[in-house]
Protein backbone atom coordinates (compact mmCIF):
# COMPACT_ATOMS: atom_id res chain seq x y z
CA UNK A 1 0.00 0.00 0.00
CA UNK A 2 1.36 3.39 -0.87
CA UNK A 3 0.14 6.86 -1.78
CA UNK A 4 -0.36 7.69 -5.45
CA UNK A 5 2.42 9.38 -7.38
CA UNK A 6 1.82 12.65 -9.20
CA UNK A 7 1.19 10.97 -12.53
CA UNK A 8 -1.17 8.42 -11.04
CA UNK A 9 -3.12 11.09 -9.16
CA UNK A 10 -3.49 13.03 -12.37
CA UNK A 11 -4.81 9.99 -14.20
CA UNK A 12 -7.35 9.24 -11.47
CA UNK A 13 -8.55 12.83 -11.22
CA UNK A 14 -8.90 13.12 -14.97
CA UNK A 15 -11.04 10.02 -15.08
CA UNK A 16 -13.17 11.10 -12.14
CA UNK A 17 -13.46 14.59 -13.57
CA UNK A 18 -15.11 13.21 -16.68
CA UNK A 19 -18.06 12.17 -14.53
CA UNK A 20 -18.20 14.65 -11.69
CA UNK A 21 -16.29 17.63 -13.04
CA UNK A 22 -14.92 20.02 -10.46
CA UNK A 23 -16.82 18.27 -7.65
CA UNK A 24 -13.72 16.16 -7.05
CA UNK A 25 -12.76 18.89 -4.62
CA UNK A 26 -15.61 17.72 -2.44
CA UNK A 27 -14.09 14.27 -2.36
CA UNK A 28 -10.58 15.45 -1.65
CA UNK A 29 -11.46 18.15 0.86
CA UNK A 30 -14.25 16.87 3.07
CA UNK A 31 -15.59 18.73 6.09
CA UNK A 32 -16.27 15.54 8.05
CA UNK A 33 -12.76 14.10 8.05
CA UNK A 34 -9.52 13.58 6.16
CA UNK A 35 -9.94 11.17 3.30
CA UNK A 36 -7.20 10.00 1.03
CA UNK A 37 -6.38 7.75 -1.90
CA UNK A 38 -4.06 4.81 -1.55
CA UNK A 39 -2.73 2.30 -4.06
CA UNK A 40 -2.57 -1.37 -3.20
CA UNK A 41 -1.79 -4.01 -5.82
CA UNK A 42 -2.68 -1.65 -8.70
CA UNK A 43 -6.05 -0.78 -7.22
CA UNK A 44 -6.94 2.68 -5.98
CA UNK A 45 -8.80 2.85 -2.68
CA UNK A 46 -10.53 5.80 -1.06
CA UNK A 47 -10.59 5.74 2.68
CA UNK A 48 -10.56 7.87 5.79
CA UNK A 49 -7.45 8.61 7.78
CA UNK A 50 -8.73 6.59 10.73
CA UNK A 51 -9.18 3.54 8.56
CA UNK A 52 -5.79 4.09 6.97
CA UNK A 53 -4.05 3.98 10.30
CA UNK A 54 -5.73 0.71 11.12
CA UNK A 55 -5.06 -0.79 7.70
CA UNK A 56 -1.40 0.14 7.90
CA UNK A 57 -0.89 -2.54 10.50
CA UNK A 58 -2.07 -5.37 8.23
CA UNK A 59 0.71 -7.20 6.35
CA UNK A 60 0.86 -6.50 2.65
CA UNK A 61 0.23 -10.07 1.53
CA UNK A 62 -2.78 -10.47 3.78
CA UNK A 63 -4.43 -7.17 2.88
CA UNK A 64 -7.27 -7.75 0.42
CA UNK A 65 -9.16 -4.50 0.29
CA UNK A 66 -9.57 -1.30 2.22
CA UNK A 67 -12.13 1.49 2.18
CA UNK A 68 -13.82 1.88 -1.20
CA UNK A 69 -12.13 0.66 -4.37
CA UNK A 70 -12.45 3.34 -7.03
CA UNK A 71 -10.81 1.42 -9.81
CA UNK A 72 -7.56 -0.08 -10.91
CA UNK A 73 -4.54 0.67 -13.02
CA UNK A 74 -4.13 -1.62 -16.00
CA UNK A 75 -0.83 -3.11 -17.15
CA UNK A 76 -0.21 -0.08 -19.34
CA UNK A 77 -0.94 2.31 -16.44
CA UNK A 78 -4.34 3.45 -17.63
CA UNK A 79 -6.93 4.02 -14.94
CA UNK A 80 -10.20 2.10 -15.19
CA UNK A 81 -13.08 3.19 -12.98
CA UNK A 82 -15.10 0.38 -11.47
CA UNK A 83 -18.71 0.15 -10.30
CA UNK A 84 -17.69 0.26 -6.64
CA UNK A 85 -17.08 3.99 -7.11
CA UNK A 86 -20.72 4.57 -8.00
CA UNK A 87 -21.65 5.60 -4.46
CA UNK A 88 -19.31 8.54 -4.79
CA UNK A 89 -20.07 9.40 -8.40
CA UNK A 90 -23.85 9.42 -8.16
CA UNK A 91 -24.36 12.32 -5.74
CA UNK A 92 -21.90 14.55 -7.59
CA UNK A 93 -22.69 13.60 -11.17
CA UNK A 94 -22.96 16.47 -13.61
CA UNK A 95 -24.60 14.68 -16.53
CA UNK A 96 -27.28 12.10 -15.89
CA UNK A 97 -29.26 9.71 -17.99
CA UNK A 98 -32.55 8.13 -16.92
CA UNK A 99 -33.46 4.76 -18.34
CA UNK A 100 -36.98 3.46 -18.89
CA UNK A 101 -38.13 0.56 -16.71
CA UNK A 102 -38.27 -1.77 -19.68
CA UNK A 103 -34.61 -1.54 -20.56
CA UNK A 104 -33.28 -1.29 -17.03
CA UNK A 105 -32.69 -5.01 -16.98
CA UNK A 106 -30.88 -4.88 -20.27
CA UNK A 107 -28.48 -2.29 -18.92
CA UNK A 108 -27.96 -4.26 -15.74
CA UNK A 109 -26.98 -7.25 -17.81
CA UNK A 110 -24.21 -5.26 -19.41
CA UNK A 111 -25.77 -4.01 -22.63
CA UNK A 112 -25.62 -0.48 -23.97
CA UNK A 113 -28.60 1.84 -23.68
CA UNK A 114 -30.59 2.27 -26.90
CA UNK A 115 -32.66 5.26 -27.89
CA UNK A 116 -35.81 3.26 -27.26
CA UNK A 117 -34.81 2.76 -23.63
CA UNK A 118 -33.82 6.34 -22.98
CA UNK A 119 -36.13 8.14 -20.58
CA UNK A 120 -34.47 11.46 -19.90
CA UNK A 121 -31.06 12.97 -20.45
CA UNK A 122 -29.48 16.07 -18.98
CA UNK A 123 -29.54 19.06 -21.28
CA UNK A 124 -26.23 20.06 -22.89
CA UNK A 125 -24.65 16.65 -22.66
CA UNK A 126 -21.76 16.54 -25.10
CA UNK A 127 -20.89 13.49 -27.12
CA UNK A 128 -18.54 11.08 -25.32
CA UNK A 129 -19.26 12.80 -22.03
CA UNK A 130 -19.17 10.62 -18.93
CA UNK A 131 -22.69 10.11 -17.60
CA UNK A 132 -24.26 8.35 -14.63
CA UNK A 133 -27.20 6.13 -15.44
CA UNK A 134 -30.28 6.20 -13.22
CA UNK A 135 -33.55 4.36 -13.25
CA UNK A 136 -36.77 6.36 -13.48
CA UNK A 137 -37.00 6.18 -9.68
CA UNK A 138 -33.65 7.99 -9.36
CA UNK A 139 -31.75 4.91 -8.28
CA UNK A 140 -28.21 4.93 -9.66
CA UNK A 141 -27.67 1.91 -11.86
CA UNK A 142 -24.19 2.52 -13.17
CA UNK A 143 -22.25 4.82 -15.41
CA UNK A 144 -21.23 5.09 -19.01
CA UNK A 145 -20.30 7.39 -21.84
CA UNK A 146 -22.81 9.31 -23.92
CA UNK A 147 -22.60 8.09 -27.49
CA UNK A 148 -24.64 10.99 -28.80
CA UNK A 149 -25.12 14.52 -27.59
CA UNK A 150 -28.52 15.56 -26.32
CA UNK A 151 -29.46 17.22 -29.60
CA UNK A 152 -28.47 14.22 -31.63
CA UNK A 153 -30.36 11.93 -29.27
CA UNK A 154 -33.60 13.57 -30.37
CA UNK A 155 -33.02 12.94 -34.06
CA UNK A 156 -31.56 9.48 -34.01
CA UNK A 157 -33.53 6.30 -34.76
CA UNK A 158 -34.81 4.09 -31.88
CA UNK A 159 -32.33 1.27 -32.33
CA UNK A 160 -29.23 3.45 -32.07
CA UNK A 161 -27.00 3.35 -29.03
CA UNK A 162 -27.13 6.51 -26.97
CA UNK A 163 -25.08 5.50 -23.92
CA UNK A 164 -22.12 3.13 -23.96
CA UNK A 165 -22.16 0.85 -20.95
CA UNK A 166 -19.11 1.03 -18.70
CA UNK A 167 -20.20 -0.30 -15.32
CA UNK A 168 -23.46 -1.28 -13.70
CA UNK A 169 -24.57 -2.59 -10.34
CA UNK A 170 -25.28 -5.98 -11.89
CA UNK A 171 -21.53 -6.53 -11.82
CA UNK A 172 -21.77 -7.11 -8.12
CA UNK A 173 -23.40 -10.39 -9.02
CA UNK A 174 -21.73 -11.12 -12.35
CA UNK A 175 -18.12 -10.39 -11.38
CA UNK A 176 -18.39 -11.16 -7.71
CA UNK A 177 -15.01 -12.89 -7.66
CA UNK A 178 -12.99 -10.15 -9.29
CA UNK A 179 -14.44 -7.16 -7.46
CA UNK A 180 -12.50 -6.10 -4.37
Amino acid at each position, binding site marked *: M*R*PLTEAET*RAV*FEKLGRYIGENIQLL*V*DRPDGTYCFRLHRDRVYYLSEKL*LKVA*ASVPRDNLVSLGTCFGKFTKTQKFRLSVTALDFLAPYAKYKVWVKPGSEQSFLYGNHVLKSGLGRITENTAQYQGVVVYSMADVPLGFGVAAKST*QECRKVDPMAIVVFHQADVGEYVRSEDTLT
Partner: protein
Amino acid sequence: MAAVRVEEVLAAAEEREAEKRRSVTVEKELELEFDLGNLLALDRNPPAAAGLRGAGPRREALLRALARDNTQLLVARLWELPAERAGGAGGPLVARLPEPAFRLPREKPPPRPRPPTRWEQFARLKGIRRRKRTSLVWDEQAKEWRRRWGYRRAGGDPARAWLAEVPAGADPQEDQFARLRREKRERVARNELNRLRNLARAHRAGTTVPAAPLHPTGHQSREELGHVTRVARVSTASLGRFQPRLPKEPAEPPSRSGGRKRRFEPLLGNLAAERSRQLELLRDMGSKKPVLDITRAVNKQLRQEEAEAAAAKGKKQSQRGKRGRRQQRPGRSSKKSGARRQQQQQRPAGGGTGGGRRKKA
Protein backbone atom coordinates in the same frame (compact mmCIF):
# COMPACT_ATOMS: atom_id res chain seq x y z
CA MET B 1 2.86 -49.29 37.17
CA ALA B 2 2.26 -45.63 37.78
CA ALA B 3 5.13 -45.50 40.29
CA VAL B 4 7.56 -47.02 37.80
CA ARG B 5 6.46 -44.54 35.20
CA VAL B 6 6.98 -41.66 37.60
CA GLU B 7 10.45 -42.92 38.43
CA GLU B 8 11.33 -43.13 34.76
CA VAL B 9 10.16 -39.59 34.20
CA LEU B 10 12.16 -38.30 37.13
CA ALA B 11 15.30 -40.12 35.93
CA ALA B 12 14.93 -38.61 32.45
CA ALA B 13 14.51 -35.13 33.91
CA GLU B 14 17.58 -35.55 36.11
CA GLU B 15 19.62 -36.70 33.14
CA ARG B 16 18.59 -33.65 31.16
CA GLU B 17 19.61 -31.37 34.01
CA ALA B 18 23.00 -33.09 34.23
CA GLU B 19 23.40 -32.71 30.49
CA LYS B 20 22.82 -28.99 30.72
CA ARG B 21 25.31 -28.57 33.50
CA ARG B 22 27.83 -30.74 31.72
CA SER B 23 27.72 -28.69 28.56
CA VAL B 24 29.26 -25.59 30.15
CA THR B 25 32.44 -27.32 31.36
CA VAL B 26 34.66 -29.04 28.83
CA GLU B 27 37.53 -31.38 29.67
CA LYS B 28 40.58 -31.38 27.39
CA GLU B 29 43.97 -33.09 27.71
CA LEU B 30 45.94 -30.21 26.25
CA GLU B 31 44.92 -26.63 26.85
CA LEU B 32 43.78 -24.70 23.75
CA GLU B 33 45.80 -21.78 22.40
CA PHE B 34 43.78 -18.61 22.08
CA ASP B 35 44.20 -15.49 19.94
CA LEU B 36 41.22 -13.47 21.06
CA GLY B 37 42.11 -10.55 18.80
CA ASN B 38 41.30 -12.78 15.79
CA LEU B 39 38.69 -14.82 17.74
CA LEU B 40 40.94 -17.81 17.14
CA ALA B 41 41.21 -21.00 19.24
CA LEU B 42 43.82 -23.65 18.31
CA ASP B 43 43.17 -27.20 19.48
CA ARG B 44 46.27 -29.40 19.42
CA ASN B 45 44.60 -32.44 20.95
CA PRO B 46 44.76 -35.49 18.71
CA PRO B 47 41.23 -36.34 17.54
CA ALA B 48 39.60 -39.72 18.11
CA ALA B 49 41.00 -41.33 14.94
CA ALA B 50 38.70 -44.35 14.84
CA GLY B 51 35.54 -42.30 14.88
CA LEU B 52 36.72 -39.87 12.19
CA ARG B 53 37.60 -42.51 9.67
CA GLY B 54 34.18 -44.08 9.78
CA ALA B 55 31.10 -43.42 7.69
CA GLY B 56 28.84 -40.34 7.53
CA PRO B 57 26.43 -39.77 10.43
CA ARG B 58 28.67 -40.92 13.27
CA ARG B 59 31.58 -38.87 11.94
CA GLU B 60 29.27 -35.92 11.55
CA ALA B 61 28.13 -36.22 15.16
CA LEU B 62 31.72 -36.48 16.42
CA LEU B 63 32.84 -33.44 14.45
CA ARG B 64 29.86 -31.48 15.65
CA ALA B 65 30.57 -32.34 19.27
CA LEU B 66 34.22 -31.33 18.84
CA ALA B 67 33.25 -28.00 17.32
CA ARG B 68 30.73 -27.35 20.08
CA ASP B 69 33.26 -28.04 22.82
CA ASN B 70 35.92 -25.79 21.33
CA THR B 71 33.45 -23.00 20.71
CA GLN B 72 32.34 -23.30 24.33
CA LEU B 73 35.91 -22.83 25.51
CA LEU B 74 36.43 -19.83 23.22
CA VAL B 75 33.25 -18.17 24.37
CA ALA B 76 34.15 -18.79 27.99
CA ARG B 77 37.45 -16.99 27.40
CA LEU B 78 35.62 -14.11 25.68
CA TRP B 79 33.43 -13.66 28.74
CA GLU B 80 36.55 -13.13 30.82
CA LEU B 81 37.56 -10.08 28.76
CA PRO B 82 36.89 -6.55 30.08
CA ALA B 83 33.47 -5.51 28.83
CA GLU B 84 31.58 -2.24 28.57
CA ARG B 85 28.21 -0.98 27.41
CA ALA B 86 28.33 0.47 23.91
CA GLY B 87 26.16 3.47 23.12
CA GLY B 88 25.28 4.58 26.63
CA ALA B 89 23.49 2.81 29.42
CA GLY B 90 20.98 0.82 27.39
CA GLY B 91 23.33 -0.37 24.67
CA PRO B 92 24.67 -3.87 24.14
CA LEU B 93 27.47 -5.33 26.25
CA VAL B 94 30.68 -5.25 24.21
CA ALA B 95 33.94 -7.00 25.01
CA ARG B 96 37.18 -5.18 24.24
CA LEU B 97 39.39 -7.52 22.24
CA PRO B 98 43.18 -7.46 22.61
CA GLU B 99 45.51 -6.88 19.67
CA PRO B 100 45.59 -9.82 17.23
CA ALA B 101 48.71 -11.94 17.63
CA PHE B 102 48.32 -14.29 14.68
CA ARG B 103 49.60 -12.79 11.40
CA LEU B 104 47.15 -13.49 8.60
CA PRO B 105 48.64 -13.94 5.12
CA ARG B 106 48.08 -11.37 2.33
CA GLU B 107 44.97 -11.70 0.28
CA LYS B 108 46.41 -10.14 -2.86
CA PRO B 109 50.00 -10.02 -4.12
CA PRO B 110 52.04 -7.00 -3.00
CA PRO B 111 52.03 -4.04 -5.42
CA ARG B 112 54.92 -3.60 -7.81
CA PRO B 113 56.80 -0.32 -7.63
CA ARG B 114 55.88 2.08 -10.39
CA PRO B 115 58.53 3.40 -12.79
CA PRO B 116 59.74 6.94 -12.04
CA THR B 117 58.28 9.72 -14.15
CA ARG B 118 60.44 11.88 -16.40
CA TRP B 119 60.57 14.65 -13.82
CA GLU B 120 61.49 12.20 -11.09
CA GLN B 121 64.35 10.88 -13.20
CA PHE B 122 65.57 14.40 -13.91
CA ALA B 123 65.28 15.42 -10.28
CA ARG B 124 67.25 12.39 -9.16
CA LEU B 125 69.88 13.16 -11.76
CA LYS B 126 70.23 16.78 -10.72
CA GLY B 127 69.86 16.12 -7.02
CA ILE B 128 66.78 18.29 -6.69
CA ARG B 129 64.91 17.63 -3.50
CA ARG B 130 61.33 18.48 -2.78
CA ARG B 131 60.88 21.58 -0.64
CA LYS B 132 58.01 21.43 1.77
CA ARG B 133 55.76 24.41 1.17
CA THR B 134 53.48 26.00 3.71
CA SER B 135 49.80 25.83 2.94
CA LEU B 136 49.14 29.43 4.01
CA VAL B 137 50.84 32.54 2.66
CA TRP B 138 50.91 36.01 4.18
CA ASP B 139 48.90 38.37 2.02
CA GLU B 140 50.31 41.88 2.44
CA GLN B 141 47.31 43.61 0.92
CA ALA B 142 44.69 41.80 2.94
CA LYS B 143 46.99 41.67 6.00
CA GLU B 144 46.13 38.09 6.81
CA TRP B 145 47.15 34.52 6.11
CA ARG B 146 45.56 33.24 2.94
CA ARG B 147 45.74 30.02 0.96
CA ARG B 148 48.50 29.54 -1.55
CA TRP B 149 45.94 28.70 -4.24
CA GLY B 150 42.26 28.11 -4.46
CA TYR B 151 39.31 29.94 -2.97
CA ARG B 152 40.29 33.38 -1.61
CA ARG B 153 43.93 32.97 -2.46
CA ALA B 154 46.72 35.33 -1.55
CA GLY B 155 47.30 37.77 -4.37
CA GLY B 156 43.64 38.18 -5.27
CA ASP B 157 41.33 36.42 -7.68
CA PRO B 158 43.16 35.99 -11.03
CA ALA B 159 39.90 36.39 -12.94
CA ARG B 160 39.54 39.92 -11.54
CA ALA B 161 43.05 41.03 -12.54
CA TRP B 162 42.48 44.32 -14.32
CA LEU B 163 46.04 45.01 -15.32
CA ALA B 164 48.32 42.96 -17.56
CA GLU B 165 51.64 44.61 -18.33
CA VAL B 166 53.08 44.30 -21.80
CA PRO B 167 56.45 42.54 -21.41
CA ALA B 168 59.62 44.12 -22.78
CA GLY B 169 60.02 42.42 -26.15
CA ALA B 170 56.38 41.79 -26.96
CA ASP B 171 54.21 43.10 -29.77
CA PRO B 172 52.32 46.19 -28.43
CA GLN B 173 49.19 45.27 -30.41
CA GLU B 174 48.86 41.85 -28.84
CA ASP B 175 46.05 41.25 -26.40
CA GLN B 176 47.79 40.42 -23.12
CA PHE B 177 44.73 39.01 -21.40
CA ALA B 178 44.12 36.63 -24.27
CA ARG B 179 47.76 35.63 -24.15
CA LEU B 180 47.57 34.86 -20.43
CA ARG B 181 44.44 32.81 -20.92
CA ARG B 182 45.95 30.91 -23.84
CA GLU B 183 49.11 30.17 -21.93
CA LYS B 184 47.17 28.89 -18.98
CA ARG B 185 45.17 26.60 -21.22
CA GLU B 186 48.37 25.30 -22.80
CA ARG B 187 49.94 24.67 -19.39
CA VAL B 188 46.91 22.76 -18.24
CA ALA B 189 46.87 20.70 -21.44
CA ARG B 190 50.56 19.93 -21.16
CA ASN B 191 50.17 18.85 -17.56
CA GLU B 192 47.30 16.60 -18.44
CA LEU B 193 49.27 15.07 -21.29
CA ASN B 194 52.22 14.32 -19.05
CA ARG B 195 50.02 12.83 -16.40
CA LEU B 196 48.45 10.50 -18.92
CA ARG B 197 51.86 9.56 -20.26
CA ASN B 198 53.10 8.67 -16.81
CA LEU B 199 49.99 6.64 -16.23
CA ALA B 200 50.47 4.79 -19.52
CA ARG B 201 54.09 4.10 -18.66
CA ALA B 202 53.12 2.70 -15.29
CA HIS B 203 50.43 0.59 -16.86
CA ARG B 204 52.86 -0.81 -19.44
CA ALA B 205 55.36 -1.64 -16.73
CA GLY B 206 52.75 -3.77 -15.05
CA THR B 207 52.17 -1.62 -11.99
CA THR B 208 48.66 -1.61 -10.66
CA VAL B 209 47.21 1.71 -11.69
CA PRO B 210 44.51 3.19 -9.49
CA ALA B 211 41.03 3.15 -11.03
CA ALA B 212 42.31 1.00 -13.88
CA PRO B 213 38.93 0.19 -15.53
CA LEU B 214 38.25 3.91 -15.97
CA HIS B 215 41.28 4.70 -18.10
CA PRO B 216 40.83 4.84 -21.87
CA THR B 217 42.07 1.73 -23.65
CA GLY B 218 40.90 2.46 -27.17
CA HIS B 219 38.71 -0.61 -27.35
CA GLN B 220 36.00 -0.09 -24.78
CA SER B 221 32.37 -0.99 -25.38
CA ARG B 222 29.52 1.49 -25.37
CA GLU B 223 28.34 0.48 -21.93
CA GLU B 224 31.82 0.78 -20.46
CA LEU B 225 32.20 4.26 -21.90
CA GLY B 226 28.81 5.23 -20.57
CA HIS B 227 29.77 4.01 -17.14
CA VAL B 228 33.05 5.90 -17.29
CA THR B 229 31.22 9.06 -18.36
CA ARG B 230 28.87 8.79 -15.44
CA VAL B 231 31.72 8.29 -12.99
CA ALA B 232 33.66 11.19 -14.48
CA ARG B 233 30.65 13.48 -14.16
CA VAL B 234 30.34 12.76 -10.47
CA SER B 235 34.08 12.96 -9.76
CA THR B 236 34.18 16.67 -9.08
CA ALA B 237 34.26 18.59 -5.82
CA SER B 238 30.52 19.28 -6.06
CA LEU B 239 29.76 15.67 -7.03
CA GLY B 240 28.70 16.65 -10.52
CA ARG B 241 26.09 19.22 -9.59
CA PHE B 242 27.50 22.00 -11.78
CA GLN B 243 28.84 19.96 -14.67
CA PRO B 244 27.58 21.12 -18.05
CA ARG B 245 26.09 18.42 -20.23
CA LEU B 246 27.74 17.08 -23.36
CA PRO B 247 26.01 18.01 -26.66
CA LYS B 248 23.97 14.84 -26.99
CA GLU B 249 23.75 13.80 -23.37
CA PRO B 250 20.22 13.46 -22.03
CA ALA B 251 19.02 16.46 -20.05
CA GLU B 252 17.70 15.00 -16.82
CA PRO B 253 20.17 13.83 -14.20
CA PRO B 254 19.96 10.19 -13.20
CA SER B 255 18.51 9.32 -9.84
CA ARG B 256 20.75 8.98 -6.82
CA SER B 257 20.05 5.29 -6.44
CA GLY B 258 21.22 4.68 -9.99
CA GLY B 259 17.77 3.91 -11.35
CA ARG B 260 17.35 0.79 -9.24
CA LYS B 261 14.60 1.65 -6.83
CA ARG B 262 11.59 3.96 -7.02
CA ARG B 263 10.88 6.06 -3.98
CA PHE B 264 7.38 6.87 -2.82
CA GLU B 265 5.87 9.19 -0.32
CA PRO B 266 5.52 7.69 3.16
CA LEU B 267 2.25 5.88 3.74
CA LEU B 268 1.04 7.93 6.69
CA GLY B 269 2.90 11.11 5.85
CA ASN B 270 1.57 14.61 6.23
CA LEU B 271 -2.05 14.14 5.09
CA ALA B 272 -2.80 17.83 5.14
CA ALA B 273 0.10 18.49 2.78
CA GLU B 274 -1.09 15.68 0.54
CA ARG B 275 -4.56 17.18 0.43
CA SER B 276 -3.27 20.63 -0.44
CA ARG B 277 -1.08 19.16 -3.18
CA GLN B 278 -4.06 17.36 -4.67
CA LEU B 279 -6.20 20.50 -4.57
CA GLU B 280 -3.48 22.42 -6.34
CA LEU B 281 -3.26 19.70 -8.94
CA LEU B 282 -7.01 19.94 -9.45
CA ARG B 283 -6.77 23.66 -9.88
CA ASP B 284 -4.06 23.29 -12.50
CA MET B 285 -6.06 20.67 -14.35
CA GLY B 286 -9.22 22.75 -14.20
CA SER B 287 -7.61 25.93 -15.48
CA LYS B 288 -6.24 24.26 -18.59
CA LYS B 289 -9.58 22.81 -19.69
CA PRO B 290 -11.15 24.97 -22.42
CA VAL B 291 -14.74 26.09 -21.89
CA LEU B 292 -16.96 23.60 -23.73
CA ASP B 293 -18.13 25.73 -26.62
CA ILE B 294 -18.10 22.73 -28.85
CA THR B 295 -21.46 21.46 -27.66
CA ARG B 296 -23.07 24.83 -28.10
CA ALA B 297 -21.56 25.24 -31.51
CA VAL B 298 -22.72 21.79 -32.58
CA ASN B 299 -26.20 22.37 -31.25
CA LYS B 300 -26.44 25.69 -32.98
CA GLN B 301 -25.36 24.11 -36.21
CA LEU B 302 -27.94 21.35 -35.85
CA ARG B 303 -30.73 23.81 -35.15
CA GLN B 304 -29.75 25.82 -38.19
CA GLU B 305 -29.79 22.72 -40.36
CA GLU B 306 -33.19 21.74 -39.04
CA ALA B 307 -34.52 25.21 -39.70
CA GLU B 308 -33.26 25.17 -43.29
CA ALA B 309 -34.64 21.70 -43.87
CA ALA B 310 -37.99 22.73 -42.48
CA ALA B 311 -38.07 25.90 -44.56
CA ALA B 312 -37.34 23.98 -47.75
CA LYS B 313 -40.05 21.45 -46.94
CA GLY B 314 -42.51 24.20 -46.13
CA LYS B 315 -41.94 25.94 -49.47
CA LYS B 316 -42.44 22.69 -51.35
CA GLN B 317 -45.75 22.03 -49.58
CA SER B 318 -47.00 25.55 -50.11
CA GLN B 319 -46.25 25.23 -53.83
CA ARG B 320 -48.17 21.95 -54.00
CA GLY B 321 -51.45 23.37 -52.67
CA LYS B 322 -53.01 25.16 -49.78
CA ARG B 323 -56.05 22.87 -49.36
CA GLY B 324 -54.15 20.06 -47.66
CA ARG B 325 -52.26 22.42 -45.41
CA ARG B 326 -55.40 24.31 -44.26
CA GLN B 327 -57.03 21.09 -43.14
CA GLN B 328 -53.94 19.83 -41.33
CA ARG B 329 -52.72 23.02 -39.75
CA PRO B 330 -55.27 23.64 -36.94
CA GLY B 331 -54.89 20.08 -35.65
CA ARG B 332 -51.13 20.21 -35.61
CA SER B 333 -50.49 23.66 -34.27
CA SER B 334 -52.55 22.99 -31.14
CA LYS B 335 -50.31 20.11 -30.06
CA LYS B 336 -47.41 21.41 -27.99
CA SER B 337 -45.81 18.05 -27.20
CA GLY B 338 -43.52 16.07 -29.39
CA ALA B 339 -40.27 16.87 -31.02
CA ARG B 340 -39.20 20.37 -31.73
CA ARG B 341 -38.90 19.33 -35.35
CA GLN B 342 -42.67 19.35 -35.80
CA GLN B 343 -42.99 22.75 -34.16
CA GLN B 344 -40.19 24.15 -36.21
CA GLN B 345 -41.68 22.72 -39.34
CA GLN B 346 -44.98 24.31 -38.42
CA ARG B 347 -43.66 27.77 -37.75
CA PRO B 348 -41.58 28.20 -40.88
CA ALA B 349 -44.28 26.46 -42.86
CA GLY B 350 -46.84 28.83 -41.41
CA GLY B 351 -44.51 31.70 -41.97
CA GLY B 352 -43.80 30.52 -45.49
CA THR B 353 -47.42 30.24 -46.49
CA GLY B 354 -48.36 33.39 -44.60
CA GLY B 355 -45.59 35.27 -46.28
CA GLY B 356 -46.51 33.81 -49.62
CA ARG B 357 -50.12 34.75 -49.19
CA ARG B 358 -49.26 38.20 -48.06
CA LYS B 359 -47.01 38.72 -51.01
CA LYS B 360 -49.64 37.61 -53.42
CA ALA B 361 -52.13 39.82 -51.75
